[in-house]
């Protein structure tokens, strides 16, 4: 495998930092939204949108484009930020997130340029991704389908229906990524439903499994490269992450699953910390 040049790694880390900055800005202005699981997915979305996906922002309906399904739809702030930064729509629109009149709905909708599937009710995105992957096989197209799931989300039984179905159909063009940030709305995931041994679960469902640090862009890139070599199985990347990553008071806190910065001071702290982190990249 070709070594990814350092400048590329740095660029992707900077993009992840930009995504985080937008997540804070958007949820602060909307006075609502889900920063915790958006911040944990920043590197994953950075790698997907600025390195991995075969997409053309000028032609969002290109039939041969790679598909991406944000199955954990509440991470929409990070997703919309990545789409805007990639050129699907003007970044200014991000300021209207969740506001009446904007196409930036609280959860991803098909009216947003670049969105391949609407999501929001957890546990459904992987099924849609399976449908897209089956369509690629039917039509002899070589696009791939990527789906990002939350770790809380995979408590939904329908995820495992889709997981069994994907391996039955040998969907080697399907790559799922689980944002394993250990926290859901009410509590830590393992206090709600035990998910471990998570890697073994996916493996036993017939998937290739890659377990990585989901904040290390190099590891994300390499895992996706390996996943693409599969000849007959779908692949899952278990991305171990920190909920609220990059904002000290949000890190590892269930409170900020679905709450924006609570006051001006929290907002400023978040921005300051992200700016400091940026200088270190």
């Amino acid at each position, binding site marked *: 495998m070709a070594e990814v040049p350092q400048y590329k790694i740095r660029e992707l880390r900077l993009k992840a930092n930009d995504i985080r900055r937008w997540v804070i800005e958007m949820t602060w202005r909307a006075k609502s939204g889900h920063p915790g699981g958006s911040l944990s997915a920043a590197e994953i979305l950075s790698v997907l949108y600025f390195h991995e996906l075969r997409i053309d922002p000028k032609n969002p309906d290109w039939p041969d484009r790679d598909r991406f399904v944000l199955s954990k739809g509440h991470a929409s702030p990070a997703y919309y930020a990545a789409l805007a930064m990639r050129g699907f729509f003007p970044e200014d629109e991000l300021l209207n997130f969740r506001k009446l009149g904007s196409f930036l709905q609280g959860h991803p909708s098909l009216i947003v340029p670049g969105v391949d599937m609407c999501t929001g009710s957890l546990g459904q995105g992987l099924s849609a991704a399976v*449908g897209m992957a089956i*369509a690629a096989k039917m039509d002899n197209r070589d696009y791939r389908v990527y789906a990002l799931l939350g770790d809380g989300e995979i408590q939904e039984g329908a995820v495992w229906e889709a997981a069994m179905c994907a391996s039955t159909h040998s969907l080697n063009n399907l790559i799922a990524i689980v944002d394993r940030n250990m926290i859901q709305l009410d509590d830590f995931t393992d206090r709600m439903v035990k998910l471990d041994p998570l890697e073994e679960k996916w493996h036993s469902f017939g998937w290739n499994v890659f377990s990585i640090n989901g904040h290390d862009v190099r590891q994300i890139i390499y895992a996706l490269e390996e996943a693409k070599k599969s000849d007959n199985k779908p692949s899952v990347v278990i991305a171990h992450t920190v909920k609220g990553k990059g904002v000290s008071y949000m890190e590892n806190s269930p409170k900020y699953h679905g709450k924006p910065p609570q006051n001006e001071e929290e907002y400023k702290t978040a921005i300051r910390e992200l700016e400091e982190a940026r200088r270190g990249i």
Partner: protein
Amino acid sequence: MNWEYESPRKAYGETLVELGREMDNLVVMDADLSTSTKTAMFGNAFPDRFINVGLQEQNMMGIAAGLATTGKVVFVSSFAVFATGRAYDQIRQSIAYPKLNVKIVATHGGVTVGEDGASHQMIEDVGLMCGLPNMRVIVPVDSNEVRRVIKFVASENGPFYVRLTRTALPNLTENDDSFHFGKATIMRDGSDITIIAMGIEVSYSLMAAEMLSKEGIDARVINMSTIKPIDKDAIVKAARETGRILTVEDHNIYNGLGSRVAEVLVENYPVPMRRHGMKDVFGVSGKWNALLEHYGLDAKGIANEVRNLMEVKI
């Protein structure tokens, strides 16, 4: 009455095969009931475009949505109870909201499922589907109409719910290709009262009208095969011209045909009306025609409802 009976499920399977020859982008899905829903006929003819997901109704709806985003026209089938009940949230979030090109054709609607009992007798599906924005709902009256409806929904973009029954139905309409979506059909004219029925109950309503004509009651019978959007004009015209309305459905009287008709009447032209159907009770096991008799959904039962409504002075 001298009617020819035909299985609407078989008509569905045959029509899918016919459409499969014409449309390369047609995909059919089922959840381990393909020999009952007759989608297996399509599966045998076009195995590469048939996906039987096994017992995964929720996953099936999600996959159908994903397929539809790539330009496929997707028919999904199961029994009505599983298609709409088990997978309601998937239909709502992944099909109706994004207005994707998925046709949910459910068989085994209503109490006429018979021996399997209440667990399999879906009497809420029409209500569930009518409540969804972007969803259009059709209950074909006979197998000839099934053919027309299936061709119609295949040619129209966006989601549809089509409800079929398990039992054979008498062919009340001719076999032609023009389905008048959103238009009710007067199956028998009359001036004293109008019976508005859907699906299997149209034939029983016609039989009831025959019985009543011998008593001097002249009943109009309307086939309301499109439940959403409903034909307001036909309802108001019937109310104006006949003064009384009885609705008849193999479905709960809440949220089904009766509720839709009542909404139109109250807002536009209130007249005495009654809703006849499953009166907010689950069904029981039994032979389908014994059940229709048990719940008063046969000709005799419908005629009784008409007589009661005729007592109301207008």
